[in-house]
């Protein structure tokens, strides 16, 4: 046999842990790393959740908590946004789901470079710690808003201008390094380490989504890295990359000749693909959930794959639609509006295919399925308001209002979070061998889902009547909108607090079910993909026994006529 005929993974030697610390802390096992990513992301996400509660209390009941000063409020806005987008959503979807699903679904023993994978998590942890250090440095974290626009991000008057902005930028730089290490592993594993019979077009859509998201990440995070480095130099060394000549508190500053717009371009060249770094894995996972729990093959598998690819490519040419209010040549506005609206085509293909998968299916309304269905609804709502904001002429008046808050929370906040919940309920049995408590799961789902609509639907209305976003308190401009806006804000705050508290029930469920949950068996959902076909549950170190599984069919053989069961696992041979 020549070398090309022996797959590298067959000769791969899995590093066996010898002590507690290499088994659970510096582990090179992708499943442990996945849990580490997940736990860290959830922990930091709870911090961001509490911050959002504080913000909502200030907005709904101004002055109720006297310790929420404008500084505290803006720091909460900034940290909430950055944590949720980068350190929870990206880290959870790619770090936790990516690490867990990719080797198991592809029939590999581990990621191709487990040591690098281990480093990836620990560098991510470092970035989280540096970010959290913001709260303990003089002046607290930065309050520049999650977009960190210069010049204001590094000028006096913005909270955390001395230390907070520095820890924030350092944390982002470290995160990019961590992501790159993980991302290189994901791509190489998917491209080069699949098992026998696992062709690209037999891969589960989850893996496709993760792969496209990782490609986007590896090409988009460089822009964040560069903008963070340059902003850090502006702040610490006194360069003028982004700083024009500024008069600050009556004093002309040393800076001159920089371009604040350059930062916006770099930031959004990262920032828009970032939306899809979060959305594409969610698309993949939700395709999986819908197919498994409706006992039907996914409709239009090939189209689903190509739609993922098309969305990935298009996401790199739409970034300036975040900058319409910054002012641009009308032709550019036209270009970016067009590309933005074109993305609706592949996205709509995906939504239609999910709905057509459900059509006449044998739907099992399990908790993961409920979350998947909720995702479709929420994503459609968020996507439709995106059509409004993609147009320059509608975006400009709406851009600084709650309409935008409602839009992006629906489409890239709540929708992927619902998928994360669904994914956790779906894979938790494989990870731990126990089912999550079903009653708590239903309570969690209904409160979260309905609560989401109670929070964000009214925000669309608030935006239309012109309530500006990011304001600590409304002043003179509030004469332009009715008093009902304040009442509505109270209502939203109460809904947000209820939803927020419900997430602690979810965390309780995660912990309690680990010890007292019902035994799950190896394949509780009757799913076809390889991760449910492992010899042991939870899968042992190295995932498979002596030989790797061989794949004989695609991932979606559900309700095949003539078969005894309504599903045929991927490693079952075809009948002659």
């Amino acid at each position, binding site marked *: 046999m020549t070398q090309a005929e022996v797959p590298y993974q067959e000769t791969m030697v899995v590093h066996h842990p010898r002590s507690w610390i290499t088994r659970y802390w510096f582990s090179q096992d992708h499943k442990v790393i996945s849990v580490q990513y997940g736990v860290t992301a959830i922990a930091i996400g709870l911090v961001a959740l509490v911050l959002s509660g504080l913000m909502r209390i200030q907005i709904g009941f101004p002055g109720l908590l006297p310790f929420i000063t404008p500084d505290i409020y803006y720091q909460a806005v900034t940290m909430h946004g950055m944590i949720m987008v980068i350190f929870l959503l990206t880290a959870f979807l790619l770090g936790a789901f990516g690490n867990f699903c990719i080797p198991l679904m592809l029939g590999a023993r581990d990621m191709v470079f487990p040591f690098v994978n281990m480093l990836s998590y620990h560098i991510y942890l470092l970035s989280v710690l540096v970010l959290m250090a913001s709260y303990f440095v003089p002046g607290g974290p930065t309050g520049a808003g999650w977009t960190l626009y210069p010049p204001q991000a590094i000028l006096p008057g913005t909270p955390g201008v001395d230390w907070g902005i520095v820890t924030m930028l350092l944390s982002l730089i470290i995160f990019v390094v961590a992501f790159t290490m993980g991302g290189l592993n994901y791509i190489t594993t998917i*491209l080069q380490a699949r098992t026998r019979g696992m062709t690209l077009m*037999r891969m589960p859509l989850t893996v496709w989504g993760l792969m496209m998201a990782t490609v986007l990440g590896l090409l988009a995070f460089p822009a964040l890295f560069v903008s963070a480095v340059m902003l850090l130099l502006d702040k610490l*060394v006194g360069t003028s990359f982004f700083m024009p000549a500024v008069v600050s508190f009556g004093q002309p500053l040393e800076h*001159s000749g*920089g*371009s604040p717009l350059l930062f916006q371009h*770099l930031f959004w060249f990262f920032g828009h693909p970032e939306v899809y770094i979060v959305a594409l894995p969610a698309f993949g996972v939700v395709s999986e959930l819908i197919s498994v729990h409706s006992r039907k093959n996914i409709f239009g598998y090939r189209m689903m794959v190509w739609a993922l690819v098309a969305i990935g490519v298009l996401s790199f040419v739409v970034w300036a639609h975040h900058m319409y209010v910054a002012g641009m040549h009308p032709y550019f506005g036209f270009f970016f509006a067009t590309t933005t609206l074109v993305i609706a085509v592949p996205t709509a293909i995906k939504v239609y295919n999910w709905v057509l998968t459900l059509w006449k299916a044998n739907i099992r309304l399990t908790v993961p399925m409920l979350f998947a269905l909720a995702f479709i609804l929420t994503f459609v709502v968020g996507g439709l308001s995106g059509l409004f904001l993609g147009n320059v002429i509608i975006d400009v008046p709406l851009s600084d209002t709650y309409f935008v808050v409602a839009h992006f929370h629906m489409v890239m906040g709540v929708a992927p979070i619902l998928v994360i919940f669904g994914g956790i309920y779906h894979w938790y049995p494989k990870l731990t061998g126990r089912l999550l408590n079903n009653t708590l799961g239903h309570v969690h789902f209904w409160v979260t889902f309905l609560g989401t609509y109670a929070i964000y639907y009214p925000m669309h209305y608030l935006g239309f009547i012109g309530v500006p976003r990011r304001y600590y308190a409304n002043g003179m401009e509030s004469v332009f909108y009715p008093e009902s806006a304040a009442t509505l804000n109270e209502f939203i705050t109460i809904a947000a607090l209820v939803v927020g508290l419900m997430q602690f029930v979810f965390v309780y469920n995660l912990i309690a079910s680990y010890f007292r949950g019902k035994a799950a068996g190896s394949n509780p959902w009757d799913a076809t993909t390889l991760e449910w076909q492992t010899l042991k549950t939870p899968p042992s170190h190295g995932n498979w026994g002596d030989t790797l599984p061989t794949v004989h069919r695609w991932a979606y053989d559900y309700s095949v006529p003539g078969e005894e069961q309504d599903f045929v696992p991927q490693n079952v041979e075809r009948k002659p």
Partner: protein
Amino acid sequence: MTPVLGVEREPMKTISEARETLLTTFSDDWGSDIAALKGVPWGKAMMWVFLLSDTFIFTCFLVGYMSVRMSTVEPWPNPSEVFALHAFGASVPLLLIAIMTFVLISSSGTMAMAVNMGYQRRKEAATNLILVTALLGATFVGMQAFEWSKLILDEGVRPWTNPFGAPQFGAVFFMVTGFHGLHVSAGVIYLLTIAFRIRRGKYDESNFEIVEITGLYWHFVDLVWVFIFALFYLW
């Protein structure tokens, strides 16, 4: 099927059939099981993806450079004056940079020879060529240090200001060449590590593709320098 040159081959096809086969074989190869890139070691695939990502970092830096060069309100310094070197009683423009570029490009040559020696399993020659490459790389970094100290100490160039014109000139110069210099320095350490490991016999089981993987990185750093050279020193 008739054996041609000892290999079983399909009979000849018409052009349209052949075109179809070409396309389907192409997609079948990519989409087949186990590996999309047949016979490519994991490390090599990973290095290529990493370099693609790193390309975007340097592209963003260079685009940032072009952007501030447009936005600054002061005239951009003339690089052939700033980077001139007094030698033999005359001011020679870009003398040091020319030597640096020559050294770095030569190091790519020795690296390519090292890869060749590696695949021929001539360990000794491969190790020596890698060490020569590392030495050339270190020379490059050393000359860069000389260039930096000359600009900083003798001419008073700072990241926030410089005597020649636009303050962004110094800022971009130190950022971009510094980031590239870090890449070269990391590459030198990488090369030394690999040379040491080859000598210790760590790769004796393999066919020394590690030399090629290291070479990919080294050539990339070299290629980036060509762009920095063209956009920064010649423009």
